[in-house]
């Protein structure tokens, strides 16, 4: 039973992080793409765009971080 538990924990942690990494990556790619378009149209607001893009990427990353926390919790606590 111990081996089955360990195996299922590993499976759960892998699925959690793997599926949780898809969403933020797509979202941040879109955000950076739009920011680059804006920078190409109006180079003088580059620093404003860069600051707001980093801010938006950090907030979008948060659901991926929730998945990481759950995966680490599964691996190291259970």
């Amino acid at each position, binding site marked *: 039973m111990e081996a089955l538990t360990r195996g299922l924990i590993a499976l759960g942690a892998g699925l959690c992080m793997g599926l949780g990494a898809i969403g933020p990556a797509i979202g941040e790619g879109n955000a950076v793409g739009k920011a680059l378009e804006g920078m190409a149209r109006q180079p003088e607001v580059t620093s404003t765009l860069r600051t707001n893009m*980093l*801010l938006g990427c*950090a*907030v979008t*990353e*948060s659901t991926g*971080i929730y998945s*990481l*926390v759950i995966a680490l919790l599964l691996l*190291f606590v259970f």
Partner: protein
Amino acid sequence: MGDIDHGPRILVEFSFFGLCDVKISQTVLSSFLVMIFLIILSAVLGKGLKKRPTKRQVLVEKAVSMLDNLVRDTMGAHNRVFVPYIGALFCSSVFGSLISLLGVFRSATADLSTTITWALITSVLVWANNIKRNGILGWLKGFTEPVAPMTPMNIISEVAQPVSMAFRHFGNIAGGSVLTSLIYAALAAGSHAVLSWIPNKVISAIPIFQIGIPAVLSIYFDLFAGVLQAFVFCMLTMVYVGAACPPPEESKAEKTE
């Protein structure tokens, strides 16, 4: 998986005059070191201010005016009372995360206790200002808007604000430190696999791959993530509290009439 990061270790445990047990963990040590450093830094930078500023004073004034402009742009000119709090929060967060660069200390922000405390301070600020504006019953009635069945959703989203802020900050910093320790273990295993053909026992046990590579990774995990997460935490605090403290236009209009 023996030497992987398992959470803050308790360093010292003693009984406080027989009343209670006091446990000093790595987080408490790091937080106290950050506090002492910030007190000494502000005392050194803030003394001897002259009307003809020295170079150091010019830099300090530039930093303070950047902070003031940031709070004024995000929260409005009527909310300048929050500038010291945002400055203290940002400095505590940045230095609390960067103290792990000194090697022996664990980041103060790699503990959920630290980040949930800061997030709860933000939430209490928001709730207190809402209650001051609308009264307790008005604030509670605000949860039933726009329609009564939306109440559970409104309560959940209100609770989700501090929880998400705390977990975002904690997850980035603590996850970075767990990943760094896993990479250290992997590099030790890799260098043992490569060096095991050397017959000398001492040389083949040297984890040679551990030199240099973790330092490059720590530029992202410690420096970049620490500063960025502190900035994001402060921006979210400013946005939430600024939304709860609108400009006092109505009272001014009544007074001029």
